[in-house]
């Protein structure tokens, strides 16, 4: 037992002595939470608009003014031809161009609308944003003529952004609500706050990377420096060496988890609707899984360089890309969906979303918990089986 404690003390010292790494370990979650919480949004705002017209009619003038009065659009230029407008868009000086078509303006004064047809030319390189911009523009242009409720189509499309914020919801030109189709109820996240979605995702990503990377490096470093030989030959059992190595990282990961949860709850107002006990238990299972993965990497890698590249790049990409944290798994091709089924963070993120946000009981996440536990058991078994008690 004393040996065990002294082992843990030694590992803890390794971690604590490296101030810079410590700083990053705790700074990373905080910065990520702040960035995602406050800086990264898909709101339609400050869209650079160019108006193509040779002749400002009062109607056009009115529409343009309404447009620039809104917080969504900023008129950056008025040009004479669509070609010029396109050049501006291509040169990244503008995002959207409005081209009035004067065909009906005088002949159909009774028509609903401003009496002016618009053609909207939009930079489509980002398809989601393009759709949103044009929807917003259409809505504002139409608002001028009729104050009637917008058809649902536009209302719906205005939510086409990935991370709309709550402020946008209240002031957007059209709201989801009653419409011809029926009433819509947004469960668990009525204000559609993106933090609800990404806090569990950040937990899944950071815990995985930190645990896997830190354990694998610390073991491989001992191999590289030659101290592993001494540890192996000592009377201490290899299993204990591994467990002792894992415990400080478990504690560290736990501390990071607490930091994320506290920040999420108090700074970003993310609910902790479910049982905290289960959140912690599932997280611990997940941390164990990440530690086993780290151990496995350390068994494969002979040098720190390889261990680092394996965990920082080869592991990072599937975790970020295939776990459903940024991109929905359902939209992927079938083959990738199968692969994604083997990505552990996917289940953890899902379980956390349910426990934290939806506030369900453990029964509803049983599936995820079982899969995670099984994966942990398998990975741990493989890692322990391939752990070499001898040199190559």
């Amino acid at each position: 037992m004393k040996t065990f404690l002294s082992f843990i003390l030694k590992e803890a010292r390794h971690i604590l002595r490296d101030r810079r790494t410590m700083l990053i370990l705790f700074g990373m979650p905080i910065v990520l939470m702040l960035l995602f919480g406050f800086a990264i949004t898909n709101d339609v705002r400050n869209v650079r608009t160019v108006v193509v017209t040779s002749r400002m009619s009062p109607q056009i003038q009115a529409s343009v003014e309404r447009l620039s009065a809104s917080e969504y659009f900023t008129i950056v230029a008025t040009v004479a031809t669509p070609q010029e407008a396109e050049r501006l868009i291509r040169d990244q000086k503008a995002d959207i161009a409005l081209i009035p078509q004067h065909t009906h303006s005088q002949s159909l004064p009774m028509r609903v609308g401003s009496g002016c047809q618009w053609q909207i030319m939009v930079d489509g390189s980002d398809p989601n944003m393009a759709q949103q911009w044009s929807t917003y523009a259409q809505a504002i242009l139409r608002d001028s003529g009729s104050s009637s409720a917008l058809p649902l189509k536009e209302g719906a499309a205005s939510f086409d952004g990935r991370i709309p914020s709550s402020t946008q919801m209240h002031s957007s030109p059209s709201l989801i609500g009653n419409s011809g189709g029926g009433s819509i109820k947004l469960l668990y996240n009525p204000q559609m706050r993106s933090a609800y979605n990404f806090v569990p995702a950040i937990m899944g990503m950071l815990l995985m990377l930190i645990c896997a990377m830190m354990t694998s490096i610390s073991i491989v470093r001992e191999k590289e420096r030659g101290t592993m030989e001494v540890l192996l030959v000592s009377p201490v059992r290899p299993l204990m060496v591994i467990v002792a190595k894992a415990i400080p990282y478990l504690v560290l990961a736990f501390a990071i988890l607490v930091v994320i949860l506290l920040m999420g709850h108090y700074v970003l107002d993310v609910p902790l609707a479910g049982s905290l006990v289960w959140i912690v238990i599932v997280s611990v299972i997940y941390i164990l899984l990440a530690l086993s993965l780290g151990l496995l990497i350390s068994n494969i890698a002979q040098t720190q360089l390889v261990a680092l590249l394996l965990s920082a790049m080869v592991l990072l990409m599937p975790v970020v890309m295939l776990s459903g944290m940024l991109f929905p798994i359902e939209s992927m091709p079938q083959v990738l969906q199968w692969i994604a089924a083997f990505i552990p963070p996917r289940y953890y993120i899902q379980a956390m979303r349910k426990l934290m946000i939806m506030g369900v009981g453990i029964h509803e996440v049983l599936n995820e918990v079982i899969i995670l536990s099984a994966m942990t058991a398998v990975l741990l078994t493989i890692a322990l089986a391939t752990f070499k008690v001898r040199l190559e």
Partner: protein
Amino acid sequence: MNAIEVNHVSKSYGKVQALNDVSFTVSPGEVFGLIGPDGAGKTSMFRILCSLLLPDEGTASVDGFDVVREMKQARRRVGYMPGKFSLYQDLTVEENLQFFATLFGTTIEAGYDSIRAIYSQIERFRHRRAGALSGGMKQKLALSCALVHQPRVLFLDEPTTGVDPVSRKELWEMLGTLRERGITIVASTPYLDEVRRCDRVAFLQEGKVQGIDTPELILERFAAVFNPPGLEPSATQSQATEKVIEVSHLVKAFGTFRAVDDISFEVRRGEIFGFLGANGAGKTTAMHMLTGLNQPTSGTGKVAGFDIRTEYEQIKHHIGYMSQRFSLYEDLTVAENIRLFAGIYGMKDSDIKAKTDNVLRQLKFEGHKDALVRSLPLGWKQKLAFSVSIFHDPAIVFLDEPTGGVDPATRRQFWELISDAAARGITVFVTTHYMDEAEYCDRISIMVDGQIRAIGTPDELKHQFQQPDMDHVFTFLARQATRSSD
């Protein structure tokens, strides 16, 4: 029952046969030496005995337990200090020792007696991080860590590489007391005086046991390997008076600690200058200032006519350097390393090519031109590193413990290379812990506690301190060190 039994053990790595049908036994309480040139298979033998490697053929047992089948029991009974043992750089001296003590189920207090002689020398640094210790002190700490517990059988793979002569004597005295307690010790060493302290030695060469006997008989039988005829003291005593190194009142302080404390000396062109001193006396720090790796805190110095404080980049054009730690690129081949460093010094491609062949012939390396440096035995690497450091014909070459851990025959060859270089007019500035090598130097300085306590030719020094040889001169001076009692 024998403490160790090795029966017909063979081990090969791919095509390389490291051990070939090796058998020997060691009785309990014996000090057994495992000696032989680099690459003879000593480290593989140690690893097999420690159950770190599986033998391809044959069996081995330690304290009655088979190292393959009864690994757990065997591991409980052995202590092992690997050749490239390194400590946890970010832990302090005391934390390292404490960790290893606990690892072996003991405490510093309980084991203190058995490490006192060595640990007391570094104890005053116990709150310093191991990474900040000098090379020799690290080795002493590593030794303390290995010896703090008392296993049934102790394996030491070249434990004294880089350790100064005085401390080596103390270590072997310690091993003597362990032996009295019935601990079996197997050690490998390139030092002949240490070989003589063993009860029996096994001489390994190319993976085969050439002979097992008392040290005297083995050293006699294989005198060609162990006791090569001494080198003629360089007859071409340089008469030049031109000074290539001039140093006056040089100081390097780290905080309040003065690693180099006001040293002054001169070195003439073509001299072989031995820069001796105990571990931690400040040799490497002084050398770093002379080679422009470090800035002095105060004092002045000129190397090859350039100021070490301001013109250190010019100095670098005129010197060669071989560090304590092997520092060629292990993932490049012999020829590629030569080409790289020659190229850095601005040599022409055609010159490099011609000279490479020459040097390789001189080193008898022709067949290994395209071998990765990683695959060479230590002694070869060191010879190569030296040849690389003088490849561009520098005015001065600085060698920091160039022969640490190298076997006697290779050391002898190494010194031939050194005297060749000196004969070509290259000034050689060398540190060493081998006192037989000190005798080959034209002049010697001995550093103690950051200061130069003696300087002169070997004969002058022996005369001055009235000692029979350099070993005694060194011991006499180094024992006056006061730093350890700070």
